[in-house]
């Protein structure tokens, strides 16, 4: 119905390799982009600051992680630590007088180097052992951040982000912070859509599918995996810096704990491994679904519909979150991206269902 294929002819290889072969897809994305850009105009500051802004930033984080987990097939259970390195590095760089634009890049580089060192150490093994090694990295980085006063500003300290400007625009108001985060997320999205079409992206996919086979056809597994860790950690580090400057604005080590790493992996899995739209949907779903469901239940409880205790209510987000992970893994292991794809394919040939591929 919406996604008409008729009348769309690709007469050259160039045209067939386009990102959006169906005009509707392109118009949909442009429409969404315009809607997202104008969000500060029609979304109330409360919702923009507490729902839309974190959604955008966590989508960028999920995109960074899905490059590693979805494309390269390397599990990472310490991604929050990578983001913590980026966040703390950027704050200290800005405080030392480095311009914000440069500090973002440098903090990304620092995260990338540290992440790649840990990745390189862990790369001798895979599967479960990679999970455990990255888990150990999470705890190590956490400990260093907490216990080195030069980084965290002392035990139990909060580090306020200094006022900065990006390309001469002061990043102070909510809309400015939102637009900066959106710009980064869009940049990552464009990068991710295109990296799948480069030799690097194809090498990553080859490594994921079978590393022996990839080595046979001339892809160096170690180098490619290391580059995957480097790229992904760079993206994660800058996202961490954006998270610190645009959303939290006062950083504590607890904001980058082990639970956050799990949450990121959950976003990637719920969205669908290695999918762009999955990262956006997954981040939104994991972030917002427990909040909305808890609000719903506590609303019902307040009106006396369901008798639940305060203790139960305070544990409800955790329950919903765990049940959500289990539910998706059992019922739709390919995640929200697959659900979206099913809907899209349905409308692609509507009303001729028999023609569905």
């Amino acid at each position, binding site marked *: 119905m919406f996604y008409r294929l008729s009348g769309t002819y690709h007469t050259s290889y160039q045209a067939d390799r386009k990102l959006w072969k169906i005009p509707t897809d392109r118009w949909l994305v442009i429409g969404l982009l315009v809607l997202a850009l104008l969000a500060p105009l029609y979304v109330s500051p409360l919702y923009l600051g507490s729902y839309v802004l974190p959604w955008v930033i966590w989508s960028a984080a999920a995109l960074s992680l899905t490059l590693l*987990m979805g494309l390269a097939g390397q*599990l990472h259970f310490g991604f929050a630590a990578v983001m913590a390195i980026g966040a703390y590095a950027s704050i200290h760089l800005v405080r030392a007088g480095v311009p914000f634009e440069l500090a973002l890049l440098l903090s990304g580089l620092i995260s990338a180097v540290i992440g790649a060192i840990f990745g390189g*150490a*862990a*790369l*001798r*093994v*895979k*599967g*479960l*052992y990679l*999970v*455990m*090694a990255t*888990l*150990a*990295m999470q*705890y*190590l980085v*956490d*400990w260093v951040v*907490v*216990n080195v006063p030069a980084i965290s500003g002392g*035990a139990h300290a909060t580090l306020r982000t200094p006022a900065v400007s990006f390309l001469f625009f002061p990043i102070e108001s909510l809309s400015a912070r939102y637009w900066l985060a959106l710009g980064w997320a869009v940049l990552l999205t464009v990068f991710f859509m295109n990296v799948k079409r480069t030799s690097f992206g194809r090498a990553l996919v080859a490594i994921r599918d079978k*590393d022996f086979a990839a080595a046979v056809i001339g892809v160096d*597994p*170690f180098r490619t*995996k290391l580059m995957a860790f480097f790229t992904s950690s760079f993206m994660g580090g800058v996202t961490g810096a954006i998270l610190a400057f645009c959303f939290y604005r006062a950083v504590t080590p607890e904001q980058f704990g082990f639970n956050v790493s*799990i949450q990121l*992996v*959950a976003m990637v*899995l719920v969205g669908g*491994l290695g999918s762009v739209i999955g990262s956006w949907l997954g981040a939104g779903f994991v972030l917002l679904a427990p909040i909305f469901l808890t609000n719903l239940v506590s609303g019902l409880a307040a009106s006396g519909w369901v008798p639940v205790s305060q*203790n*139960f209510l*305070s*544990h*409800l*987000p*955790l*329950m*919903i*979150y*765990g*049940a*959500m*992970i*289990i539910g998706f*893994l*059992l019922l739709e*292991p390919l995640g929200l991206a697959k659900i979206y794809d099913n809907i899209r394919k349905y409308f692609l040939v509507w009303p001729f269902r028999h023609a569905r591929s």
Partner: protein
Amino acid sequence: MAYFLELLISGALTGLMYSLVALGFVLIYKSAGVPNLAQGALVMTAGYAVWLVMAWGLHVWIAIPLAAAIMFGFGLVVERLLLRRMVGQPVIMVVMLTLGLEILLRGMVPGILGSTPKPIDLGIDFAPIIIGDVFINRTSLYGGIIALALVGASLLFFRTRTGTKLRAVSDDHVSSWAVGISVERAIGISWGLAGIAAVVAGALWGSSQGVDWTLSALLFPAVAVVILGGVDSVPGVLVGGILVGVLGTVIPGYLDSFAGGSTRDVVTSLIILLTIMVRPFGIFGREDIERI
């Protein structure tokens, strides 16, 4: 010197208590090949089960077998409902599923039964045993002895008929099917046994620090224990447990004062990292890990 000795003994005993948690992990990994990251939450659930049964007014010696029966059933149910559908899926799916279970249990059990720490009274005297200058915590001592006994029992169990079946299943699922062993039932039994091990761990840890969600944090030292000892080795649990416990007590005992506390997590992380880098299959594990 007495300080060192005390750290050494309490570390070894704590390590043996860790190996109680790790035993469940190994039992499941050995037969099903599933890394059960929900073992910590299973221990927490078991602790709550023991507390609940004791709250009905039953004696400890009745409460613990009853809780063990409950957790055996719980293990069977988890395997049947969740893990059976994950056969043949990539390891990330299984790891995430057990983590999802961990989060769900960590929310649901304290959410329903209350999140304030619950006491479990096993009838163990709190006064320490004093030998020379060394103080020994009675709970840890009994816990260590029970851990030794339990690991010994598991070793013996693997020599029984059912245990031989479990070992066959751990070797190869398809061949086990071919000779008429029910792989599903064997894996279910291993989950049930992990539930029983969790009851013992939950009761002992619960009596020493109270039952609340923090029991699920035992997962991290337990993971270090199994990585060090070898994920598919029952005796490795003991050796790994003692090593992790001793290193995780002695080193923080000297470093914590000027490194700013909680060095134990760092030691545990370093044990995991170094083991994976030097000898990924652990001390006693089988050397069939895929590497690049």
